[in-house]
């Protein structure tokens, strides 16, 4: 049974009271993906005169009857439907506390649902696995919980083809990627462009889970390989150095991309808040 963090209601409540449109400057608002695109929603964006390149079907005939001139009505796209949760379910996630992992994702999904976002859940390992689309309203949180409970952590990670497939298939405006990024091609994965992405990195250092110095046999469940090494001061230093390079690469600043790193012992609430702040920034 996955519990949702108690603070989520409070956080969602606080953000719900924000009048996003009024508080944001015009320029920022126009760039906000939620309100930017022209589409098929019922929110009227603009009424303008018919131009030769316009579709005849878009002509508002009532206005033509009243004014005897051709007018076109434009509406906003219903973009808040595109909050895509990409959830890594490869075997390497098992180093991290999977309960915490599931709980974090469920809590974040709950907050978004409370804020009337539509979310889609997609799990992947080396390819896309399960998909659950169009979850709306907080009352449907059970779909999220059921999806997360059914996650089995197996198989290797292959981020690049997964991200490319997601981009081609759904072209989501906002992607939340939950992964440990333990993939040899993680550098290439960072280059796959999304309009807006949030990378939530669940990281476990080897020194956190190793029982101590001595001979260490490490099994990689993804590659099904064993490695015996002397885990001593020298090798621990080398591994730490490598981990730092890995983390620095992931945390490097990229356009339209936000990076958050979670460890097993870290407090989760600030991350919810920070993600919402960045989303509305």
């Amino acid at each position, binding site marked *: 049974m996955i519990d949702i963090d108690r603070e989520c209601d409070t956080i969602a409540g606080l953000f719900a009271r924000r009048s996003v449109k009024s508080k944001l400057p015009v320029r920022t608002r126009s760039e906000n993906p939620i309100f930017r695109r022209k589409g098929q929603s019922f929110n009227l964006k603009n009424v303008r005169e018919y131009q030769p390149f316009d579709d005849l079907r878009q002509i508002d005939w009532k206005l033509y009857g009243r004014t005897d001139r051709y007018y076109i009505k434009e509406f906003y796209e219903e973009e808040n439907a595109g909050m895509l949760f990409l959830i890594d379910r490869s075997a*390497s996630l*098992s*180093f991290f506390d999977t309960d915490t992992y599931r709980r974090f994702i469920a809590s974040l999904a709950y907050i978004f649902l409370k804020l009337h976002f539509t979310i889609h859940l997609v799990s992947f390992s080396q390819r896309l696995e399960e998909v659950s689309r169009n979850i709306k309203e907080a009352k449907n949180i059970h779909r999220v919980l059921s999806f997360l409970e059914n996650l089995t952590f197996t198989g290797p990670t292959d981020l690049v083809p997964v991200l490319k497939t997601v981009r081609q298939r759904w072209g989501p405006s906002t992607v939340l990627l939950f992964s*440990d990024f*333990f*993939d*040899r091609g*993680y550098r290439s994965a960072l280059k796959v462009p999304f309009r807006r992405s949030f990378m939530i990195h669940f990281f476990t*250092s*080897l*020194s*956190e*889970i*190793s*029982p*101590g*110095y*001595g*001979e*260490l*046999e*490490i*099994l*990689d*469940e*993804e*590659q099904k*390989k064993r*490695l*015996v*090494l*002397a*885990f*001593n*001061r*020298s*090798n*621990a*230093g*080398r*591994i*730490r150095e*490598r*981990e730092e390079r*890995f983390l620095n690469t992931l945390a490097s600043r990229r356009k339209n991309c936000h990076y958050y790193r979670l460890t097993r012992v870290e407090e989760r609430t600030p991350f919810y808040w920070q993600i919402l702040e960045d989303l509305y920034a």
Partner: protein
Amino acid sequence: MLEFVSIWLLLSLPVFLLLFVNLRGKQRLVYTHTLLSDFQDRTLGDFLFRTFHLYYDIILDLILALLTALFLSGLLGSAADRTAVCVDGSYSMLLGAPGETPLNEALSRSCEEEFESADLYLLAFDPDRGRSRLLSLNRMRRRGGLENLPERLREDLGFFNQDYSPCGALFERGYGRVVVLSDHAAASGGSLEFQTVGRSRPQSFFYPTSIDYDFAAGNFRLTFQLRNLNKEVQVSVYREDSGDYVPVPDAEISAGPDSLLCLLPERGLYRFAAGEMDFVFNLAEPATPARAVGDFSRIILGVLPQLEEGNGDLLLLDQPYRAESPSSPGEIRSTLRRELRSAGTFQHALVTFLATAGPVGAATAGPVGAATGNTAIDSYIHPLPASLSRPAAAELPGALLGLDLPGVTLFYQNPARKPDPQTPIVYLSALERRRAPAYETHPEGRLSLVQRHLTSYVYRRGDEHVAVNLASEELYGASRETGLRFEAPQARRWLVFLLLLCFYILKSVLLLLLERPAAGKAG
């Protein structure tokens, strides 16, 4: 050695226990290898380095145990007090009544109190290798099997020539005293300490005293010494096609009371047998390979049977000069040097001066011995052991005496008697008989045993047969070369301790560097 192994095992036991515990209690966990690619083995060096990194403490502990065991067992450093007893395994040790041979006496002596703690070896001839080597008899002695040991050893090993040089290995192993129990009288002063046991000599034997090739007669002359030999000497030759010896029909044998002369016309592998004893000779003409430069020298090379065309140390060289004016030795010297240089490097060069014009007075103005014909000429005789020359008519003009060329023997063709019929004779040696290659004492190279008899062996080395016969000392009882000196590498105790200390410090440093717990797990 057994002591060393037991000590080492005892010292290594806790190390192996620790290794076992370490392997059993190895920490295992599941984690990705994505960040551990530096530790993957790409080359053999990576694997070795990683293994050393894993087990360096075990390896160093084992080395420390090894050094300590070497030191405690006396194999390293403190073995100088130990004694090795080496029993002579030559043919003469088997002579005598059964059970009373020098070998029996030597083995009994080795069990006496004096040598009770000493290691026992037998210096025996290894028929397969064609040379003497040391065999340890310690295990047999411990098992108390020395009673039947002489018979067993006689069956398994070749009691043959004696060669004490393998005893040097005992000093290299650290023995401070090496006692040789032999039936031969030995001179003192060498590194080996000889103790004489028994002294039996064969009552009847025969032995080759000379094997020559007579170039004039074109046959091999073999002479043997006989003593109380009541059996006829059988001569046979080895036929490759049948793989066996067949009697020689045209062998001329003339036997005296104490000697035997045999004339054999053809080369080949011959066997002379009488009773248990036999000798095998691979007879071949003793031709010396030489190179000729100049027409005269080429003729000489073709005429003389002692020489054959080939790459050797000998050069025959013509040196023409103007007979009427041999007064420019400098010019001749420079010409000669140039030609010698262009001919290549030879240990010996025989140079014949050929007059190109009429007689000169230089011949009469030769060295003092020229008038008498031979004495002063001795200085021109080439120092080859198989010298070809007796330069009866050869002497140099006085003007050429100043040619000082080391390794060069000069001959002079007397222009007064041109064409000189004697000059070729100069090369036709008085030593028409030369010692022929017949057998080897210490054969070298890769050998395979073909035939084995009590006093002779035949090996095959490549395409040729190599005959190995009993040395005369075994029959004559002549004194041997026993003044051999061997240098024992004396390992010093402080060196052992220094090594131990170095390894200990190395291990401590590695432990401090790699395993320091203060470095902790914190990232």
